[in-house]
């Protein structure tokens, strides 16, 4: 088994206030990017997994997200393994 690269995208849940996203959106508007709306600022986390089968890796990373990487009260997460959705 080789190394798997997992990419985790953590984003604020819909309906949860995202003041950072709002501020970025306002700045983009100020810069003349009037077409921009609904900016959401999240986190990107990259992990390397050693000696784990691909079918197990997805569940492992999901466990990491649920326990630590994301807070289910305010955030959603999405996982990619080696560049494709898990």
């Amino acid at each position, binding site marked *: 088994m080789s190394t798997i690269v997992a990419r985790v995208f953590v984003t*604020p849940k819909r*309906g*949860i*206030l995202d*003041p*950072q996203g709002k*501020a970025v959106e306002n700045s983009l508007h100020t810069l003349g990017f009037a077409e921009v709306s609904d900016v959401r600022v999240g*986190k990107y986390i990259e992990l390397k997994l050693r000696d784990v089968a691909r079918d197990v890796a997805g569940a492992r990373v999901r466990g990491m997200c649920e326990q*630590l*990487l994301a*807070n289910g*009260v*305010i955030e959603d997460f999405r996982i990619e393994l080696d560049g494709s959705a898990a």
Partner: protein
Amino acid sequence: MRWGVVVFPGSNDDRDTLRMAERTLGDEAIALWHKDRDLHGVDCVLLPGGFSYGDYLRCGAMARFSPVMEAVGEHAKAGGLVLGICNGFQTLCEAGLLPGALIRNRGLRFVCDVATIRVETSDTPFTYGCRAGELLQLPIKHGEGCYVADEETLARLEADGQVVFRYADRAGRSVPEANPNGSLANVAGVCNPGRNVVGLMPHPEHAVDRLTAGEDGLKLFRSAQAWLGRRPSEARREATVVPGP
């Protein structure tokens, strides 16, 4: 009584909290190192303010996995008293000991000010000596103090009287202008369903001296003393609750 103040790497109000318990209250107070799995028989656990683990990932996200938090969880489950202040409140939410979460202030700025908060219920150990509707002036200093919860959770908190403190103006009205951080429904502090775990963003431990920030914060700690020392006949004392938000 014996107070325990948890010290995480990055806590910075732990000394003030210990000092308050020892010098102002005249009680015994011990520091509980985050790697300690034993609470050493404390009656009340205080989780202090600060920036535990550098606030990395999310405020309180890492602190909740400290060995001491397992003991704090057991203490809470057994009905023991726990008060989380600022970063301590964030940690209790992350640990699932309190509902909801705290996110970046709506204005994106760190706020450092004195807030007026309204006591919403006297039915917790930390507001036992207060009247519902009573106003307290307490310092606030935080960047991530905006309380959020999903609609269902918030409705349940309101219905069950788990909103313990709300930001209010000097007249006691919980209006948007009195909200320093964008918290839902002006929530400044909540409790768990068992009412023995309370968290709030303002700092009662920094308002225990007339020379600095007043003495309103003392009411929370004196309440806990009175609650623990109450006679069984007083245990069912009628609690007061502010009707609705």
